[in-house]
């Protein structure tokens, strides 16, 4: 890496002692690039074995990469922590302005240790770190308001990121998210609860550092930049994300029979037309946004105009961000085809700072559990949940936050826990403890959920293997496992460069190597493959250390009951693929 590059600066912040300092960690970045690779090493260093995820012992690590601030689309921040939701690896990625702000503030990573004694937020402006009082913000109902107040209190508009939690994080709900720039999220695995446990309401980061470029100088920098930029604005894939955004997938997945519907009792939703990307764009799309340094702008914001119930000519307009996963989790999964109900539920979840996917799956399970009589209306405090009944779901989400009785307290701990109390494990759709994403496409997707280090569809995009390979030909479980592992290992490289996965086609191994040379990293594409494999192994080492085991992975029977686009899921096939991954990872040295 370049000698003058501030990337190697790791900012350590100790909330308990109200101290901060910077360490040069060239060792970490030269070996592991940045992002996920660097964060997992710091997690090994910082998190004691067996630490309670909601204790001051659990660190929060944010990391960016060498291409951030240099090239388009290297726009993600990787957060790592021990997950209060699964008890092992906690990792989530968000865009917004966070990555560029951290990089131009002069850091490659930020480590937060300890805990506040009273609610506070941390403001990092370049080399200055301020510990601010947030007692006034704690308990505030609406997380949008929190953002507005912090915006007015802090300098550097346009050059900053405000990462904050809502009530869900304060209440330590293990699937609470951290929101940045109103609409982007460190969504999965409960970073919001880790913030909450530290009485940390927000982290503000701003900067305007210049960053050095090496290999080939300014001319080569501009040449590589122009190539990446042109591909980004001209490629059909990127146009897709710009036009309709991720919701473009609603109709194709529904046509295929892979759109989980009514807690996956079905995989086709008769109301999909009303909540598709096309329908939402036509009737509600009000604005498109981009992460910092991404010309694509995949973020789609609906403008919802609602009349007041009592007062004539009194309207309020809310701007609500929607994506495919939200349409799945809070739309089809709940049997909801009313777009306004869907948008209101998305907005409510945003206001509280919950992970939308986990919340949707929890509500879907609760609806079916009531339907089957496992949970009485009485136990639910008089609330009857029914498919598509958005007023009931809005109320249920409020109760998940307030937890007025045992039932809602159980829902607030996730679907796995709720089913362990009330029964209905067969239709409690979590994998490795994490609620499922919106792909009932076949064994590739499920294998990815089960063995992905984050139990995320983004670990290995198994849904893509289902659609591109398995719909055309059969492959054995070993071959499927190899495909999944290969993709997950390469994605370790992308998430260490912090390149958005949507741009994975643009950042081919050759382009990546050229961009890295500008940033002062001399890596061949073989080097990158090797580094990806090592990072994957290190993540699994952490998981095993914290008690993860392939033997305890559970596949809810529901996934075999509802036919997928590639036929009925064979649990023995899936198990064989899991076994292959297990032995492969053991061979890799975990």
């Amino acid at each position, binding site marked *: 890496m370049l000698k003058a590059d501030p990337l190697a600066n790791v900012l350590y912040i100790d909330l308990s002692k109200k101290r901060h300092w910077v360490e040069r960690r060239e060792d970490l970045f030269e070996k592991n690039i940045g992002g996920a690779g660097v964060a997992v090493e710091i997690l090994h260093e910082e998190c004691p074995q067996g630490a309670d995820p909601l204790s001051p012992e659990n660190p929060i690590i944010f990391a960016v990469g060498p291409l951030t601030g240099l090239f388009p689309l290297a726009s993600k921040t990787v957060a790592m922590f021990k997950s209060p939701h699964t008890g092992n690896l906690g990792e989530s990625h968000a865009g917004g302005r966070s990555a560029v702000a951290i990089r131009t503030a002069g850091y490659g990573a930020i480590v937060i240790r300890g805990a506040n004694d009273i609610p506070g937020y941390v403001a990092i402006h370049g080399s200055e770190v301020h510990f601010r009082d947030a007692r006034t913000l704690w308990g505030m109902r609406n997380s949008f308001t929190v953002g507005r107040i912090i915006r007015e209190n802090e300098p550097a508009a346009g050059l900053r990121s405000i990462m904050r939690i809502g009530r869900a994080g304060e209440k330590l709900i293990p699937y609470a998210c951290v929101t940045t720039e109103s609409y982007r999220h460190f969504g999965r695995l409960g970073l919001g609860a880790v913030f909450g446990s530290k009485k940390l309401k927000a982290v503000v980061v701003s900067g305007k550092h210049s960053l050095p470029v090496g290999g080939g100088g300014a001319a080569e920098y501009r040449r590589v930049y122009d190539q990446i930029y042109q591909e980004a604005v001209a490629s059909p894939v990127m146009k897709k994300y710009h036009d309709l955004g991720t919701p473009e997938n609603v109709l194709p997945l529904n046509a295929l029979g892979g759109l989980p519907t009514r807690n996956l009792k079905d995989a086709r939703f008769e109301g999909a037309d009303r909540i598709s990307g096309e329908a939402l764009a036509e009737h509600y799309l009000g604005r498109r946004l981009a992460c910092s340094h991404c010309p694509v*702008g995949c973020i789609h914001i609906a403008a919802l105009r609602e009349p007041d119930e009592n007062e004539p000519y009194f309207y309020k307009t809310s*701007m609500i961000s929607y994506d495919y996963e939200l349409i799945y989790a809070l739309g089809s999964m709940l049997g909801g085809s009313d777009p306004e109900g869907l948008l209101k539920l998305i907005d409510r979840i945003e206001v509280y700072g919950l992970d939308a996917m986990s919340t949707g799956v929890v509500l879907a399970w609760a609806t079916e559990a009531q339907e089957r009589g496992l949970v009485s209306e009485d136990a639910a405090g008089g609330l009857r949940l029914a498919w598509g009944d958005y007023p009931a779901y809005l109320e249920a989400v409020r109760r998940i936050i307030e937890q007025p009785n045992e039932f809602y307290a159980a829902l607030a701990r996730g679907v796995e826990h709720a089913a362990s109390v009330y029964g209905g494990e067969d239709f409690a759709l979590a994998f490795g403890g994490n609620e499922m994403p919106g792909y009932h496409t076949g064994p590739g997707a499920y294998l990815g959920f089960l063995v992905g280090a984050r139990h995320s569809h983004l670990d290995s995009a198994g849904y893509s293997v289902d659609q591109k390979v398995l719909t055309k030909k059969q492959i054995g479980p070993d071959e499927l496992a190899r495909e999944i592992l290969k993709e997950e290992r390469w994605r370790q490289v992308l998430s260490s460069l912090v390149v958005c996965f949507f741009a994975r086609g643009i950042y081919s191994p050759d382009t990546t190597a050229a961009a890295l040379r500008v940033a002062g990293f001399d890596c061949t594409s073989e080097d990158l493959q090797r580094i990806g494999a090592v990072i994957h192994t290190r993540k699994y080492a952490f998981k095993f250390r914290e008690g993860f085991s392939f033997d305890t992975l559970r596949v809810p029977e529901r996934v075999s009951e509802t036919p997928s686009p590639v036929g009925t899921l064979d649990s023995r096939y899936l198990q064989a693929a899991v076994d292959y991954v297990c032995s492969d990872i053991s061979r890799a040295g975990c």
Partner: protein
Amino acid sequence: MRLSAVDTERCIGCQSCMFACARRLGEAGLASTCIGVRSIGGMERGFKVVVCRACDDPPCARVCPVGALQVRKGGGVRLDEARCIGCGHCRDACIIGAVFWDDETAKPMICVHCGYCAKFCPHGVLSVETAETTESAPGIGMAVRGESMERQERLERAPQANNAVDATEKAEGAGANA
């Protein structure tokens, strides 16, 4: 020619223009950008684009006590960095905040209207307007903007940056991606 934010409602806040402005000098990051994109009270409300609008009678030049800012033919100003004492009056006089500040040299940074940023606006927010009075000589970017000697040298070596980009080409570039 002068740079103009023609439709900020089209802005998605990607800040590609800001990075382009710095990259013109061969730099990454945002330290030397002369254009600013920021939200209007949160992303939900959209963006403003802060950039020099090349006033015909620029207040920044009027308040300069040492004559370091000279009115440019066609609007806007050019900075004579040797004269500048870094008092910051120009920054205070610009009510749209388009006089940016170089923290290292403690001197102003002002858009030179080279149009490089507009080439990287994917959605037609920025465009370059050519006035009859515009000087179309190459090297406009280099000549106008106040730079430290080191930066000036870098700029001279930069193949694309120091040429005023042909306005037609730019308009097409912006249109194609819009």
